[in-house]
């Protein structure tokens, strides 16, 4: 949401300014998705479409409950269904609500070349500011979770906003409001973590010994967290990354090379200038012209 006051931004893409810190006391928020309580009704998907006024394209059936089969520029959250056979040979139906994880250290924002097209608010929400987006797709390369989708129609990148417009007005995200089983919760990150701890204990008592909270430290933690019954292997949940991190390539590209390149270019330009100051121009003199003509005369006049 572009019309929030800039004091709310703690990070802003492609900008060298110091982020405003006057609201750094603000509580960080988080959405907690309890996968063990999800029944796969897709109410959250519908609520997301309704609140954000999105109309995903109708698709062909692809042999799975996933509908549409992937995130799109107008599908910002998606139930992903996995049929998992556990160690005792029983089938488990794992249903994960996929969407932006709102990383504390957002790879999309790091990769974005358009000033202010991706921002992070003091409450931790990472938001795309569409009118500043240039449609280059760098956010796609920066994201460790494969979330942003660039529209072929308007060349803008889209993803879940964590309903930043609702949250800034004291409301919970639309998906949270719609969830009939309480599998999606919203509050301060601290509250959500302590709530998750209770739930994880419960799950462990019920025999899910590897139950745990998914709040990956490699990206500084996330503002969307999962309670997983098998937190030791997140990737069984439709490819949730075990150790999500901003790619080394993106780190080199956006971290090391940016300043090094500027330095090299400046050095080449300044070096050239001082060569000119010290050595001066290289000019052909009368001696060269005379010698050249002597050679030409030896060969019978002009060449």
């Amino acid at each position: 949401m572009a019309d929030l006051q800039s004091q709310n931004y703690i990070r802003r893409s492609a900008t060298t300014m110091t982020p405003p810190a006057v609201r750094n006391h603000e509580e960080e928020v988080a959405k907690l998705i309890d996968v063990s309580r999800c029944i796969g009704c897709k109410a959250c998907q519908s609520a997301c479409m309704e609140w954000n006024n999105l109309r995903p394209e109708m698709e062909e059936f692809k042999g799975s409950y996933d509908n549409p089969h992937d995130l799109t520029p107008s599908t910002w959250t998606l139930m992903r269904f996995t049929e998992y056979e556990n160690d005792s040979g029983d089938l488990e139906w794992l249903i994960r609500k996929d969407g932006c994880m709102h990383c504390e250290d957002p790879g999309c924002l790091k990769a974005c070349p358009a000033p202010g097209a991706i921002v992070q608010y003091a409450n931790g929400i990472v938001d795309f500011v569409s009118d500043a987006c240039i449609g280059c797709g760098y956010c796609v390369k920066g994201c460790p979770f494969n979330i942003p989708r660039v529209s072929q129609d308007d060349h803008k990148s889209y993803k879940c906003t964590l309903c930043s417009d609702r949250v800034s007005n004291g409301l919970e995200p639309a998906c949270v409001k719609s969830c009939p089983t309480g599998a999606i919760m919203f509050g301060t990150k601290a509250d959500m973590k302590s709530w998750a701890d209770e739930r994880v204990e419960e799950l462990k008592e019920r025999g899910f010994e590897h139950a745990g909270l998914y709040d990956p430290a490699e990206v500084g933690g996330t503002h969307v967290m999962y309670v997983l019954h098998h937190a030791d292997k997140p990737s069984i949940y439709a490819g949730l990354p075990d150790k999500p991190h901003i790619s080394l390539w993106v780190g080199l590209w956006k971290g090391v090379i940016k300043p090094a390149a500027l330095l090299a270019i400046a050095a080449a330009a300044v070096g050239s200038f001082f060569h000119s100051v010290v050595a001066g121009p290289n000019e052909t003199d009368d001696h060269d012209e005379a010698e050249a003509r002597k050679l030409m005369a030896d060969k019978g006049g002009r060449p």
Partner: protein
Amino acid sequence: MNRPKDALTRNSTVTRVNHWITGLFFVLLMLSGLAMFHPGFFFLSYLFGGGQSMRAVHPWFGIVLVISFTGLVIQFWRDNRWRREDTEWLASIGKVLNNQEEGVPEVGRFNAGQKGVFWGMALLIPVLFVTGLVIWEYYFGHATSVETQRIAALLHSLAAIGVILIWIVHVYAALWVKGSMRAMLRGWVTPGWAYRHHRKWFRSLVETGSNGPTPNSK
């Protein structure tokens, strides 16, 4: 200054037009590319009508450059083959930089520095072309994996910095060695210029009674 009667043709009209088309698109690519590389240069996007249109035209500029540059490669590659005197010339680069070209090994149509520019560009421009296609979101955003695109973006920026550095050397050398700009703008050089900077080339023209740019050409 009008072309003197005994001037030598350094670059044909076709070469010059080809060169400046390449140069124009190189500069456009450099400005738009830098704008997308570092926030300090993002203001350059206004030259292209804003970020969206700049992002849209940059790859097309690249296509034009690749076609145009291929024309230069076809015209120049023969005279850019590395020769023994090039290595010797490089060994006396200190003298060259001090404008003392007497006693420096005689070189043909291009010296080792120019050959470095040629081969540097000839190596890096294909890298830029291929990696540029991979990260061309609109047409090829789904053609390769995201991981491939990450590596391509990194290589694209590295190669771009390489060609920009080469370009700075190229432009400065043209300004430094007087007569070079005229050689590419108007196409001709004086016999003294050829004698001073490219004596082997000069001798080959005199031997064959050629006006340049290559021996035997009329």
